[in-house]
């Protein structure tokens, strides 16, 4: 593994994002902090409603600051030219410069992210010309080169096609091409392979790894799939109910996780290497309703180790387990003995 | 109170219904009673004046609400009774039924409603029943088209497939699943159809093809008051305003519910 340079290129500090939904205040993201270094892939793992997508959008400066929406904290970015800025403090005009050039994002909904009435070529060229000072012809050549690099065989045909003519895997590659057109330092991928077939997913993951190796790009990979995390990330942040519940290196994730939610999640996954017919260790209950938060630890209603009077009353803070490993649980030390 | 389109529309429609129901109480005079006091201007006895036969204009406007509502709602019911089954069958069963239905719908929609109503009314003669039937007949394709489109949308849901898997017949599924899920939209369209029926029937009356006298009918009142606007503008303005208000009321109610 490459030694990680000390200075992070992105630092998220105490990020909190809230919305009002149906008259109630919902804390979608609560006090989230993490760092990202160059060339590193960080996975944000969690289920629906845990706040991982909102975190990704916040880093892109895509949180709509309308009435009822609040965002606080800092998102400190070191840009390509060395300048530092705080995404949350910037206005939309300055952010437009950042987006695509320094930070880019690809989404799960590749169907709607591409404009159906413009050809693929038009869209890639448009993206390229937004970020670089080149003419139409050079942009077209660059677009072709990008597509070839992303493993698309018939680049000319692809450039002239429209989004509905392409398969899911192709569309995702096109989206990646558009995202990379500005040569960003950080790529945020929000569930990019969830809607794809597993063999296509394997292709896309390999592609992203190849791009990373070539350009030392950093990636924030948002997913609910722990298996994909194992393939692609060096560090992982597990989120639950809007909070970070555990941050740890990926090799630790699969044997030395400390937070009961993380461990329960791993145990409940169906696995190819397990003997069939055995009962899965399912987590009882359902993910929490963010509009009506409970006291104490957000996971306690579903936790096998929850202690009444403690876990349901006092909200746990982040504890350091080891270097690079933090956990939000009252009982993690005791539970260490209970493997 | 929020003055939304829906609340304004509801207010107008509910007031009109109240007026129609309470007409005998609200109207100062018998609307068909003629007198020698013809073409009088507004006075204490006759708040809006009298018409060319000495009848009280206000009473005629009040009682005219009944006529308008009867035609409007009646014709719309006919349109729904004719159009909804066609739309449901075409939308759910598809195939040849749908092809035939679409041809018919397209044909009728292409014809201008007022002209068609006019021609048929001339042929069959104007009367309350005929007017209701003719207008209903003119409007059924619009209802059918809407119902068909909505049925297409609902048909794609998995719960429809589940009902098929349970062994449900097409009739069962349409009755139990399709209709309840499209009802709200059809009801909204119903209100709009009522407004269309009222204005069209008023137009027909204005052209002399409305309900024959002495039944008080707003369109005819506008027509007969037309020549005498200089003497008493209320002759036309009162019924005219009533038409506008009621049409607007139903339209607001319908379009805001969609």
């Amino acid at each position, binding site marked *: 593994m490459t030694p990680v340079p000390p200075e992070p290129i992105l630092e998220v500090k105490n990020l909190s994002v809230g919305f009002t939904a149906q008259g109630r205040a919902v804390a979608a993201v609560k006090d989230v902090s993490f760092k990202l270094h160059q060339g590193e892939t960080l996975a944000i793992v969690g289920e*629906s409603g845990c706040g991982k997508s909102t975190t990704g959008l916040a880093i892109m400066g895509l949180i709509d600051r309308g009435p009822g929406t609040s965002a606080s904290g800092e998102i400190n970015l070191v840009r390509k030219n060395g300048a530092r800025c705080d995404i949350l403090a910037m206005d939309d005009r300055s952010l437009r410069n950042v987006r695509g050039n320094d930070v880019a994002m690809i989404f799960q909904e590749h169907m709607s992210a591409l404009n159906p009435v413009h050809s693929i070529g038009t869209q890639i060229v448009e993206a390229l010309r937004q970020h670089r000072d080149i003419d139409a012809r050079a942009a077209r050549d660059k677009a072709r080169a990008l597509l070839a690099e992303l493993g698309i065989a018939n680049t000319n045909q692809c450039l002239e096609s429209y989004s509905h003519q392409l398969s899911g895997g192709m569309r995702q590659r096109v989206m990646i091409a558009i995202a990379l057109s500005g040569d960003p330092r950080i790529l945020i991928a929000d569930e990019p392979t969830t809607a794809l077939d597993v063999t296509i997913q*394997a292709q896309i*993951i390999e592609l992203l790894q190849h791009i990373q190796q070539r350009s030392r790009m950093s990636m924030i990979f948002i997913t609910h799939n722990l298996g994909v995390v194992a393939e692609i990330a060096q560090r992982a942040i597990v989120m639950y109910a809007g909070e970070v519940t555990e941050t740890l290196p990926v090799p630790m994730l699969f044997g030395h996780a400390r937070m009961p939610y993380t461990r*329960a999640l791993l145990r*409940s996954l*169906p696995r*190819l290497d397990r003997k069939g017919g055995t009962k899965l*260790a399912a987590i009882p209950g359902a993910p929490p309703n963010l509009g009506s938060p409970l006291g104490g630890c957000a996971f306690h209603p579903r936790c096998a180790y929850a202690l009444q009077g403690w876990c349901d009353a006092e909200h746990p803070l982040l504890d350091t387990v080891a270097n690079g490993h933090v956990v939000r649980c009252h009982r993690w030390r005791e539970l260490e003995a209970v493997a | 109170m929020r003055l939304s389109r829906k609340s304004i529309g509801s207010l107008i429609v509910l007031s009109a219904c109240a007026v129609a129901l309470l007409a005998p109480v609200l109207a100062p005079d018998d609307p068909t009673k003629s007198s020698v006091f013809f073409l009088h201007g507004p006075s204490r006895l006759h708040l809006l004046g009298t018409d060319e036969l000495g009848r009280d204009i206000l009473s005629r406007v009040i009682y005219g609400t009944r006529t308008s509502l009867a035609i409007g709602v009646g014709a719309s019911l006919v349109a729904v009774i004719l159009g909804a089954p066609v739309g449901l069958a075409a939308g759910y069963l598809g195939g040849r039924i749908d092809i035939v239905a679409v041809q018919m719908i397209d044909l009728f929609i292409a014809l201008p409603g007022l002209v068609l109503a006019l021609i048929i009314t001339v042929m069959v003669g104007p009367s309350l029943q005929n007017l209701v039937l003719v207008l209903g007949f003119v409007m059924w394709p619009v209802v059918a088209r809407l119902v068909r489109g909505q049925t297409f949308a609902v048909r794609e849901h*998995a719960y429809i497939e589940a009902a098929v898997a*349970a062994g449900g017949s097409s009739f069962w599924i349409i009755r139990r699943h399709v209709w309840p899920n499209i009802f709200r939209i059809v009801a909204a369209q119903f209100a709009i159809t009522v407004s269309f029926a009222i204005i069209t029937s008023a137009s027909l009356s204005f052209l002399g093809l409305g309900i024959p006298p002495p039944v008080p009918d707003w369109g005819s009142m506008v027509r007969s008051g037309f020549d005498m606007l200089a003497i008493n503008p209320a002759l036309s303005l009162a019924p005219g305003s009533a038409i506008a208000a009621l049409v607007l009321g139903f339209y607001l109610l319908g379009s805001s519910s969609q």
Partner: protein
Amino acid sequence: MISEPPLLEVSGLRKWYDVRGGVIPRVRGHVRAVDGVSFAVRPREVLGIAGESGSGKSTVGRCVLRLIEPSSGEIRFAGRDITRLNRRELRLFRRKAQMIFQDPYGSLDPKMTIADIVAEPLDVQGMVRRGPERRERVLQLLDTVALGPEYADRRAHELSGGQRQRVGIARALSVGPELLVADEPVSALDVSIQAQIVNLLEELKQRLGLAMLFISHDIAVMNHLADRIATFYLGRVMEIAPTRQLIDNPRHPYTEALLSAVPHPGLERRKRIVLTGDVPNPADPPSGCVFRTRCRYALAACAAVRPPLRQIGDEHYTACIRDDIFASQTAPKAVAMAGLL
């Protein structure tokens, strides 16, 4: 179990869709959604159908229940060819075979109460009259899927995804079927809920003696539920084998690729086979073996003739003409992770 006659027998099932086009509309070709598929399911057995998009797996499930009419082929349920049933017989057949749908949000009518949703098959089939008996049956069914009686009068939008899926299962069970076709029943659910539903299905299979056709793209889930697995590609069966056999000892290149593409938490970074390209156009499939265009072991002979599904072991069938690819390989065994968690 081996000697029992099959509950469901599918032979040569085909579903081709016409492709129309041109100024004068005429049939220009066919999309071969299901292209000659044969398999069997025994009583109380779960057969998993694994495949990706375009594999035809959902279409097969629907053909088996006659929610889609097959173009040709035979489907025998308890010995009778169900493609030839009349309306009345078809309705009776629906008591024996039911479906669980993928979308927990679209598969429940938003205007109905949960009780009505669960009881609908009973109502349609005329198996119970409205009244206390019906109510009792509904509560019983809800209890089977671990939902309390308080849910009976609620509406779908008040329930979570996992709860809705339970309602769907209760509905399918209401008429007492022998076969359940489950079309991606857990794919739309959160990861932590999936395990709950998988466990429920497993328990129901044991308790009620249900046979199941479990359709999914997720082979890991199938490992837990299925007794045998069939892998599908472009409308055809590539391989059928008992679950453990298929996973540990695949004998078809597509199965091998499919297994290796599944991201495994905790496994050593194994050599992964990444397929190149996309799935071919189902309206214009490759000649011979449809997988040959992406197969790393393809030979010239693979293009000549469509390979038959041939038996290569105990209950193990493959549609690959080559015997030499896997013979000497031992399948990559997973590092024993059970102890570490």
